[in-house]
């Protein structure tokens, strides 16, 4: 039997096509088998919805760092965030820093003492253009349709690109098992902890919004933090921004933070 090159290529091409379509058909039937026919998913009835969640923090209404402590405690309790004292491996979801560190673009040596000495609450900015999402190689961090930049710890491989990408230092790496720094009975047994080797951050309390609750820090702030839909001109956040002077962190980077500060 003497085959020409042409007829050999024809047969080879046909075989490759037949094999690959067979594999594709197999994998799609396997996927279909895993889903129960007749089942579906939907958004909870009580869930709060928005096109773009945003936060406005009235820093004028907080007298000192001690005023922020209940908010930090509420956040860290709700999400089982450990405190690793005296270490550069602490986990940060909601933390405080001076104006110079929080807003380094605003260089002014003669700022009023009230602003220079005030502590500012910092958290993930849930940017419109999040650099962390762009650099994540596994899509473990992603932007949801409501503007929240969320984390799927199942997918995180701990490469820490997102930490390098985030200009706000809002991400923390678990250098060790966080449960070592939590009490035996975790503060919130309805919420998971994290494990060694994943990056974590503030989630704008997506799990609380899903059941109709405001984020933990907002709920603990007695109205000094306003949370709502930035795309709705009648929302509380839009009214607060329309009536007060507000700033955001590092605006020249173009990330469009979703956390606004009234100063």
């Amino acid at each position: 039997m003497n085959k020409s090159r042409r007829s050999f290529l024809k047969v080879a091409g046909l075989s490759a096509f037949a094999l690959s379509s067979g594999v594709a058909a197999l994998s799609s039937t396997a996927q279909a088998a895993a889903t129960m026919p007749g089942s579906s998913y939907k958004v909870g009835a009580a869930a709060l919805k928005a096109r773009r969640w945003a936060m406005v923090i009235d820093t004028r209404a907080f007298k000192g760092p001690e005023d922020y402590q209940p908010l930090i405690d509420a956040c860290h309790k709700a999400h089982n965030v450990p405190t690793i004292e005296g270490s550069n491996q602490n986990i940060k979801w909601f933390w405080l820093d001076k104006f110079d560190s929080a807003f380094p673009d605003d260089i002014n040596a003669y700022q009023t003492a009230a602003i220079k000495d005030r502590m500012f609450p910092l958290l993930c900015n849930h940017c419109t253009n999040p650099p962390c999402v762009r650099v994540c190689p596994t899509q473990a961090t992603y932007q949801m349709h409501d503007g929240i930049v969320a984390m799927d710890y199942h997918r995180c491989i701990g490469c820490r690109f997102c930490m390098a990408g985030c200009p706000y230092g809002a991400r923390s790496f678990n250098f060790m098992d966080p449960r070592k720094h939590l009490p035996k009975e975790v503060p919130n047994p309805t919420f998971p902890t994290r494990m060694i080797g994943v990056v974590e951050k503030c989630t704008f309390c997506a799990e609380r919004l899903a059941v109709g609750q405001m984020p933990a820090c907002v709920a603990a702030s007695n109205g000094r933090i306003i949370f709502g839909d930035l795309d709705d001109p009648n929302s509380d956040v839009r009214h607060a921004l329309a009536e007060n002077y507000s700033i955001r962190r590092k605006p020249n980077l173009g990330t469009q933070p979703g956390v606004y500060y009234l100063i």
Partner: protein
Amino acid sequence: MYNAKAVIVGAVIFAALFSSPFWLNVGKADYKRPDVVLPKNEKECVEPVEYMRAEHMALLNQWRDQALRNEKRVYVSSTGKEWTISLQNTCLKCHNDYANFCEKCHIANSVYPYCWTCHITPEGKK
């Protein structure tokens, strides 16, 4: 054949090693399905038992993606009943005996999922 002696001895050793699991387990008891302890007060799981037994891991993956990425945190089962999507708060509410339910079957089948490095089991709390 070159080196026939060495080749044949090698082939025999390979065959013996390759089939050793078979020979070592000859005469041992058959695999028995582990007696998992089912929840006492609940009769109905999210989906029928055959589906859950075979596909619970796939269902959990779908639950995770739908809840975390699409904000769809309610699962409507094939019978039309609605369930809040949560391993920790929905599954483990009924299946609260981790050692006699999840772990028993996983160990018998040599699978070691790392759910519990983050999710909290009811009895351990941690």
